[in-house]
């Protein structure tokens, strides 16, 4: 992963990857973020329990991660996970994010991913939502890393994100 992720001065980073490499990109990002504090993992389509397993297989300590799980699957660890009924419930996701940021525990936010958001929401809604999230992270002093899979559907949103994020990394 590029210096842009490692460098904490990059407050807003867009990671552009392929479907094949997205899991590896996530592992790399989370490894960096959890070494530098506590991270909020906004999991749009993957259940938190499965992500914990996958990250721990990669020897990544998940103790420093708080999950927003939008998969709709019932959760076990209610302390570390806030469940949201669906990836299209954008207000609920933002309420969950507010709860997490208000705790003052976290210093970074990972959004996985724009491409998943686009499966469940219109492009216009996703664009507005992600702008809202970026502003909120900035106001709360959080570093934000956004994952985007470079597919046809995500193209236009990626172009927008290139303009509004500080750094872009191809993985």
């Amino acid at each position, binding site marked *: 992963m590029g210096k842009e992720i490692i460098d904490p001065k990059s407050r807003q980073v867009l990671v552009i990857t392929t479907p094949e490499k997205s899991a590896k990109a996530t592992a790399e990002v989370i490894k960096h973020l959890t070494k530098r504090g506590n991270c909020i993992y906004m999991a749009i389509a993957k259940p938190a329990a499965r992500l914990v397993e996958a990250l721990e297989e990669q020897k990544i300590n998940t103790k420093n991660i708080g999950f927003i799980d939008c998969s709709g699957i019932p959760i076990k660890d209610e302390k570390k996970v806030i469940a949201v009924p669906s990836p299209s*419930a*954008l207000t609920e996701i*933002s*309420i969950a994010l507010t709860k997490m940021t208000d705790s003052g525990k976290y210093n970074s936010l990972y959004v996985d991913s724009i491409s998943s958001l686009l499966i469940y929401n219109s492009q216009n809604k996703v664009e507005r939502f992600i702008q809202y999230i970026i502003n909120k992270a900035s106001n709360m002093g959080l570093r934000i890393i956004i994952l985007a899979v470079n597919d046809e559907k995500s193209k236009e949103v990626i172009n927008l994100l290139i303009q509004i994020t500080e750094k872009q990394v191809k993985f």
Partner: protein
Amino acid sequence: MGKKYKDTFQLLAERRTTFEFSKRKVSENKIRRIIEAGRLSPSSHNCQPWSFILVKNKHTIETLMRTYSYGVFYGDPPVIIAVVLEKIYKNQKGLLAKKLSQITLSHKYLNIGFATSNIVTEAESLGLNTCILSPIVRIANKILKVPSERETLLLIGIGYRQSGSLITKKDRKPLKEVLMREKYRG
């Protein structure tokens, strides 16, 4: 469809913020009455330090809805009333004459709150739904062409709740925690 309340207390007890609005239009008569409710609000020394900007243009609403970054994510309402804090001049004529020394900044902000509360209450009593947003003042001023030294402090979204959209639980401190008799913690 908005709710009909049997009295003001029921309205206050049951009114919830609306996060997502339907496309249904709000009638001019209702909008006028809602703004009148704001105009009739009480204010310190009757200073009435407010103006209301009625916004119905879809593009302007969409742009305004991007100016807040605290709170949560909202869907666009069909109508926004922007509540602007007016400047009170030293030598103001008319109703605001010679009021400056008596009106502190906190009074002005409180007065904007009174007007907003009246607007929201009237809208809900007419069967409409509302949300109150705090915009980034500098940006909201620019969008609405509000002159400097005035502040677009609040945006009130008005419309009808989209069916199936989120309604959060009312979460308030219990009465025994906030009510004291005769003296603090008495």
